């Protein structure tokens, strides 16, 4: 055990710490990027699924298929699909770009579901009252539903953000310089696997745990305002 701590101490050089910081920042940034853009696109998909009428059926179907597909394909497989898609399209993009596209695709699908559930949690009579006053679907969502739904949307969306931080570890497999990749690099450079991955585990913990405590507080704070 003493060897381990000694080794970690040796690991803590300026450049290594910088590298670790870079990995941590990339990890968070990937998840945040996926959640922010995913939230925007996901909301569009959620609204698309709430349209009705024969004309918009293709839109509803596409939104449904997209959402179900990217929720049911593992992160790694989506990552590889994006990687090879870019390769065969002849586009020479960085691995980070591939990672970003992957997280946006997956984030969109999951957040579309969360937003849709939130919109539907608003009492149907709120929808009916708006419809009978000739609000369009977009007006109803913008002025009535979304302002009420966001308290139902935010906790699970934030929870997804925290989950995504851990999922993004898989991006290391195509060479994105996030936290797990840093750990693998340390291990390859000669540090013991226990030290390398141990440190990485601790850093992930230090990122995830405070956020999840914050998320729990957020959920508590938003719960009472979910009154009708």
């Amino acid at each position, binding site marked *: 055990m003493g060897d381990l701590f000694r080794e970690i101490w040796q690991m803590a050089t300026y450049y290594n710490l910088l590298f670790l910081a870079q990995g941590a920042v990339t990890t968070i940034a990937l998840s945040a990027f996926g959640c922010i853009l995913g939230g925007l696109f996901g909301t569009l998909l959620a609204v698309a699924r709430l349209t009705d009428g024969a004309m918009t059926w293709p839109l509803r179907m596409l939104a449904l298929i997209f959402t179900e597909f990217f929720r*049911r394909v*593992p992160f*790694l497989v989506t990552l590889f699909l994006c990687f090879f898609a870019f390769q*065969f399209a002849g586009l020479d993009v960085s691995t980070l770009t591939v990672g970003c596209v992957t997280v946006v695709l997956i984030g969109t699908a999951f957040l579309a579901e969360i937003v849709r559930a939130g919109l539907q949690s608003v009492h149907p009579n709120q929808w009916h009252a708006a419809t009978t006053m000739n609000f369009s679907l977009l007006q109803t969502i913008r002025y009535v539903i979304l302002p009420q739904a966001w308290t139902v949307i935010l906790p699970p969306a934030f929870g997804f953000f925290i989950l995504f931080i*851990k999922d993004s570890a898989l991006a290391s497999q195509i060479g994105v310089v996030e936290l797990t990749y840093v750990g693998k690099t340390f291990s390859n450079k000669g540090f013991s*696997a226990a030290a390398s*991955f141990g440190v990485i585990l601790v850093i992930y*913990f230090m990122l995830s*745990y405070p956020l999840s405590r914050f998320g729990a507080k957020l959920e508590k704070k938003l719960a009472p305002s979910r009154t009708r």
Partner: protein
Amino acid sequence: MDYTFQFGQIWPRLPYLLGGAWLSLQIAFLAFCGGILIGTFCAAVKTFGGGITRRIVNVYVVFFINTPQLVQIYFLYFALPDYGIFLTSYMAVLLGMTLNAGAYLTEIQRAGFESRRQSEMEAAEVLGFTRLQQIRYVILPHVAKVLFPPLSNHYILMTLGTSMAAIFGVEELTGRALNVNAETFRSLEVFSIIAVVYVVVTLFASVVLALFGRFAFRAKMRIV
């Protein structure tokens, strides 16, 4: 884009790939069962246990929930040998997934236990049910109904989670796809196909679980 899709090379290898899907399901199932056992024990400790055991369980749960499964498996596979514990890749993946599942399932099951309704138990007690009968006829049905949807959902997530076993050389679905890719270089085709296989398999599992839930527990579960 100057790429012609050639699925022709993939179809003969389809049985091989589907064999990988079967392995994925097995791994998920075994890890889930192990996770349930751990989860039940730990949830019981957290609900009914004393101070020290509760603390230990808490540390376990909090640690495994807040770190990525991939890195947990990396540690088990690469770091444990330094301490004399040599796991095959399959064992490392299974152990990692089981410990990870155990932590999540502890939380799910704890929520389930805590949903037991005091008033129903008191009513049963007053009607003369013994403790055992209370558990069997009053608590268990309700808790099972509450637990079934989140447990089913987590099982589906675990099935998807088996794909990271490929990184360690385990030949489940994604692992076999990587093999086929190495042979044929038809990357887009093979990964598209396994993506579809994952979707189909998890959809099938969702439908079966939802129907079972509605039938056995009257738990209204959405399929899609």
